[in-house]
């Protein structure tokens, strides 16, 4: 009797500790951030202004034209992962300034404050309609979601965690490419993350990559396009070179709908373009199909 009550109290204490830890983690802090009333956002597609609050209720989709707004990493996790199942991993990374570039540290500090993230990527354990998986999300609000040393390390860690737990992994990408302030170190993250995918692939585990607006540059040319199944959100910009660079190089205007997810689906590079409202169901189904028994 005494033993059981002891273990129960121990467990209670552990639970409390965990709760405390999670409250202190950036994920929970950001969850508490509320959008001020009366803030408006302009839809880039139909140019109409939408109330931010009503927009959030509408799954960040423009009610006039169906444009999918960018989502913060936190919002994405709240949207996709079942309530109270997300446990963030890989906390405490610090971005350094390897090339001693002017103003880089200040920039990072500014974005850290405004997004409450360590860097442009978070990952952890989560469940999607009860299907266990490792979930990683890039945040395009953090320096355009660019991939520096910390993002590369965390992406690699998330694959390693997924191998360790023998779980499938789902990654939402949103990035402008490699982070040029970190120079050659950023470029090498492409090799690092790709080799992590190769290791994960060898273990026979599932990797679903979901490309969201915008996915370009070094991220497209590494782990984002190496998924077993590649999904994309409608109307997302996906490509290696940015549209402006291509326009400058070939000196002509690009055709309408170039480098969108629908375009790539037509060209045969993406498995399926999925509306945001169907995304959770599609992901949980795909995870269920690949469940190990």
């Amino acid at each position, binding site marked *: 009797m005494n033993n059981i009550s002891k273990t129960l109290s121990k467990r209670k204490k552990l639970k409390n500790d965990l709760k405390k830890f999670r409250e202190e983690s950036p994920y929970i802090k950001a969850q508490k951030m509320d959008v001020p009333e009366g803030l408006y956002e302009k839809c880039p597609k139909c140019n109409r202004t939408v109330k931010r609050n009503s927009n959030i209720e509408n799954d960040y989709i423009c009610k006039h034209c169906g444009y999918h707004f960018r989502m913060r990493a936190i919002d994405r996790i709240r949207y996709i992962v079942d309530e109270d199942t997300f446990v963030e991993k890989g906390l405490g990374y610090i971005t350094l300034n390897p090339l001693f570039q002017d103003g880089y540290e200040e920039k990072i500090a500014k974005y850290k404050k405004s997004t409450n993230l360590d860097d442009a990527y978070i990952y952890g354990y989560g469940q999607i309609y009860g299907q266990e998986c490792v979930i990683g999300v890039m945040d395009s609000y953090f320096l355009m979601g660019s991939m520096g040393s910390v993002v590369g390390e965390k992406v690699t860690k998330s694959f390693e965690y997924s191998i360790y737990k023998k779980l499938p992994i789902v990654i939402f990408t949103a990035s402008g490419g490699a982070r040029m302030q970190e120079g050659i170190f950023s470029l090498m993250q492409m090799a690092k993350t790709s080799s992590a995918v190769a*290791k994960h692939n060898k273990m026979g585990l599932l990797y679903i990559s979901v490309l969201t607006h915008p996915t370009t540059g070094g991220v497209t040319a590494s782990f984002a396009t190496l998924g077993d199944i590649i999904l994309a959100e409608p109307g997302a910009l996906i490509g290696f070179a940015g549209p402006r660079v291509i326009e400058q190089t070939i000196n002509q205007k690009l055709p309408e709908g170039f480098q969108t997810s629908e375009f790539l689906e037509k060209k045969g590079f993406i498995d399926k373009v999925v509306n945001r409202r169907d995304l959770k169901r599609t992901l949980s189904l795909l995870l269920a199909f690949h469940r190990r028994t």
Partner: protein
Amino acid sequence: MDILAKERKVKELEKQIESLGDSETVKKLKREIKRYKEIEMSKLTAWDRVLLARHQSRPKALDFINYMSPDFIELHGDRLYQDDSSIIGGIGSINGTVFTIIAHQKGKTLEENIERNFAMPHPEGYRKALRLMKQAEKFKRPILTLIDTPGAYPGIGAEERGQGFAIAENIKSMSEFTVPIISVIIGEGGSGGALALGVANKILMLENAIYSILSPEGYASILWKDSSLAPKAAEVMKLTSYDLQEFSIIDRIIKEPYGGAHFDKEKTFNDTKSAILEEYNKLKILSPAELHYLKNKKIRNYGFLQRFNYKNLGGIKR
């Protein structure tokens, strides 16, 4: 005065020699040229090295291949769409060892450059490289890649055929191969286009080659909105061989003659060849599993960051 101006001065002096017949003055002038090269052309700024890496008369990949491996046979096509002439690939022997050789090829004249697309490959080029590397893996043949590209081509056709997908596939597969891979950066190493051939057991670099995430012009125009600040950007970006060796991104620097590789091509080729063979002899004795393990361990350690850790406060992980 940048390196090109210095080079012009040397050329001028050499011309003077030709016009003179007197042996005494010739000797004096020759000594002067030699001294000038040693003093002035050995102190290079990062921008000088960028200029040298892009120099018109710098030896190109085919020159290296023709010297090192006279029996080289070029193989064409990716068996999917078409042949991309900005990447050349084939089989050849270097000192009796058969290598699969893959390289970016720049042109020497404008016409050839247009045909080679200034060594900016389309996805076909990368898929051809991958096909040949898979072939090498099958026949347990070591792979040698020579890197000299401003970057992957940004164009409509390239995007339509999956530029990013092709590069990603190359990087992933190169990290998986178990045969020895040696990469030599002989000129410009531009961004993902270079990395798609540059995931190797040993990465060598010519002294005046550069390897960077984007061109100094691009960097300056994105960060400072002014592409004429490229010389300053080159300094900041740390793209020279010495910087990269310090970061342990590359393994070895191959020295060039004063004033750049084009002043003494024979010597550059010879040094490159012996460096490649030396590194290959080190890799040859390792088993495939060891090669795979060591390569991936090296790749895993790329990056410059810190993690907050109760046990190890303030430790820097490199």
